[in-house]
């Protein structure tokens, strides 16, 4: 039977990572069953609404990726899923902007929540890039028009040869592989930061999640 000294190796990176995770994000924080009273407000709903819209975007996007343009341009079911993908993106941005306004006006970076604010900001920018490449990969006249309008803008800032909006293959891979991966990763980190630091309280409320740290 091995001793405790033999089984625990605190110098291992796995042990350090485990200890850091247990210290910063214990399971009670990761999966809470209660929230502070101030969360009972409509303005706190928009983060979850944004996540819900993102779930619909991903699900409909997976279907579109499997079936392809010859399906979603032609069949009724394809056009329905294509529209579902498009309109869930519109709702995603609608909810995200209201969420952003709510968090900005309550200074959501208070209480050592800088990482939550920064990851949210990055997610917003990456979302714009993901949506833009989505417009470019509709494979219709609209996407061609957008690409040839946008190329002048990208060329004028010197990145047109590297990020080529008229290259459908590059834009498609950006839209269905690289950018969703980045956005998904940042979103997960953002949500974990919310869990770690707690939901930000209104300006004049006591911070129940951080026991009074409200500045």
């Amino acid at each position, binding site marked *: 039977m091995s001793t405790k000294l033999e089984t625990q190796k605190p110098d291992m990176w796995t042990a350090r990572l485990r200890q850091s995770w247990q210290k910063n994000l214990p399971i009670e924080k990761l999966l809470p069953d209660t929230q*502070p009273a*101030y969360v*009972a*407000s409509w303005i706190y709903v928009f983060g979850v609404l944004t996540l819900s819209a993102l779930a619909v975007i991903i699900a409909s996007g997976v279907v579109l990726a499997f079936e392809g343009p010859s399906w979603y341009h032609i069949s009724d079911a394809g056009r329905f899923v294509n529209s579902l993908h498009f309109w869930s993106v519109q709702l995603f941005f*609608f909810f995200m902007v*209201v969420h952003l*306004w*709510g968090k900005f006006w309550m200074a959501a970076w208070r209480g050592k929540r800088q990482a939550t604010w920064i990851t949210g900001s990055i997610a917003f920018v990456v979302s714009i890039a993901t949506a833009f490449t989505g417009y470019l990969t509709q494979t219709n006249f609209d996407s061609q028009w957008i690409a040839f309008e946008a190329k002048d803008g990208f060329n004028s800032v010197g990145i047109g040869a590297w990020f080529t909006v008229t290259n459908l293959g590059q834009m498609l891979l950006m839209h269905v592989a690289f950018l969703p991966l980045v956005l998904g990763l940042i979103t997960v980190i953002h949500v974990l930061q919310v869990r770690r630091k707690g939901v930000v309280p209104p300006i004049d*409320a*006591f911070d129940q999640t951080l026991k009074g740290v409200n500045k």
Partner: protein
Amino acid sequence: MTGFFSEFMNLNAVYLKANSWLSISVSNLVVIISMLVIFFIAISIPFPKDHHESSKNGRGQK
């Protein structure tokens, strides 16, 4: 797509121009105004409370 929506979606966009540099389509303006309306509703309409819980919790303390 047929009928009203077909005709509506095929209309040219209407742009509002305030001066030489400010130009916005009516549809984009409608979306922005809708977001502002929803934002102000969200911060002013009270959230339905759980009567069982609301007797125990306040709206935060100073």
